[in-house]
């Protein structure tokens, strides 16, 4: 395979060199190049970082293949910009350091665009934006957040939901407990140490509400999507200064939004519009 690429490159270089020499040789030399459809395949691979621990957005099938909404979107975008996606699995904690160390080119792993992250990395436009919700026992009387006073709410450490909970719920007298992982929050609700959680509505539906231990729990209050806490959605992270790649990806997002690819992918995983408004 490698030698095939190499010989193709040699041919291409020879062709280009031939073009420069004179008009008469360029005609004959350009002919084989135009018949070879390999030209777009020679764009370098796009290394895409994912943390496949976030079903249904990024996870692995039993035979070890990365899959999910994020991965399908990445595939669609790669097809659009005519580069091949190569996936690099990376733990969430070292996601941004790995990007800066050039282990990969982009992060397509449900990363929300936030002020703090924008200080160190750049983002494309959003490719989805699912709102967060508060989840407590369904029989909890609720008029506004003040009615949750005295309750214990678990959140994912370092998440946008934690920021919201610290900024809005804690001043209202709710006690907030941050956890390393969202499934630990569910385990602690089950064991009775927590009254509820603030979480992404898709995540909490798949991971908790639709399961036996989520029986008797439900959403309360409005849909939460305050830009101050939640940012402007989920985007593709890339190193600062990579404007060309950013522009290409933004154009590709627009393209798959308009040509129906996005909707096909979205319908595969969700029964509502994940793009948001």
């Amino acid at each position: 395979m490698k030698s095939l690429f190499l010989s193709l490159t040699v041919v291409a270089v020879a062709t280009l060199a031939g073009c420069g020499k004179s008009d008469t040789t360029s005609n004959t030399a350009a002919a084989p190049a135009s018949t070879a459809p390999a030209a777009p395949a020679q764009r370098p691979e796009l290394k895409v970082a994912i943390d496949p621990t976030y079903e249904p957005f990024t996870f692995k099938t039993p035979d070890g293949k990365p899959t999910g909404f994020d991965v399908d979107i990445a595939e669609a975008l790669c097809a659009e910009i005519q580069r091949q996606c190569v996936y690099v699995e990376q733990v969430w904690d070292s996601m941004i350091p790995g990007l800066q160390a050039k282990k990969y080119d982009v992060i397509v792993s449900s990363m929300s665009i936030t002020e703090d992250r924008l200080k160190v990395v750049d983002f494309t436009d959003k490719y989805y934006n699912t709102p967060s919700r508060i989840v407590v026992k369904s029989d909890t009387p609720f008029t506004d957040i003040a009615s949750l006073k005295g309750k214990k709410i678990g959140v994912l450490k370092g998440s946008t939901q934690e920021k919201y909970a610290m900024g809005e719920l804690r001043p209202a007298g709710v006690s907030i407990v941050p956890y390393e992982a969202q499934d630990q929050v569910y385990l602690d609700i089950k064991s009775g140490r927590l009254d509820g959680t603030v979480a992404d509505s898709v995540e909490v539906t798949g991971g908790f509400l639709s399961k036996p231990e989520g029986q008797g729990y439900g959403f309360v209050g409005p849909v939460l999507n305050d830009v101050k806490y939640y940012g402007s959605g989920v985007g593709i992270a890339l190193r600062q200064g990579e404007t060309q790649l950013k522009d290409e990806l933004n154009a590709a997002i627009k393209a798959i939004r308009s040509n129906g690819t996005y909707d096909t992918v979205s319908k595969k995983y969700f029964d509502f519009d994940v793009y948001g408004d």
Partner: protein
Amino acid sequence: MLSGYFLAILQGALLTVGVSLGALALAIVLGLIGASAKLSGRPIPVALATVYTTLVRGIPELVLMLLVFYGGTIGLNHLLEMAGSRRTVDINPFLAGVITIGFIYGAYMTETFRGAILAIPKGQMEAAWAFGMGRTRTFLRITAPQMVRYALPGFTNNWLVLIKATALVSLIGLQEMTYLAKQASAATREPFTFFLFAAALFLVYTSVSLWALRWLDRRFSLGVRRGHA
């Protein structure tokens, strides 16, 4: 249908064994160098070894790993850019894992070995010198065999902690079994099944190594009569 996930975790276990054995070898070498530096009595080696053990034992492994691997790569990339190269450094994560963990546990080994050497009666070494043995021969024939016996309890502790520390190498992009268990539990939403499996694998590994270390301990205590407990 779930067997694929178990298989992946088993493969991760092989990586855990590889990283931990590699790191152990490096830690032993660094530990011996560190211990002899500390015991040399010469100011510069003593100072260097003290800085090493103080810094490394005082900083959380997770922080060190991020600093060494990502800090190192980012630094090298900057250097390359300044030199006008468009290439980027790609450090092999397996090697990076072995080196980082070996470097960290070398500091613990230094202290274990230093204590073990100090526990050997000074007269033993003096007798060897009196017989005209050189430094190397004294170390190999007199110090090392006795040191092993004194070092083994502390060494065993370090080794068990080192094995578990390999769970951190997922930070630098290695698919070790804890991270694979996490992936499987996230995909299936069955955390206990896969984490218990990974825990059992760790237990098998530590049990086998404890058995081997107990054999070593008996071997190196042949000339010693133990009090009945």
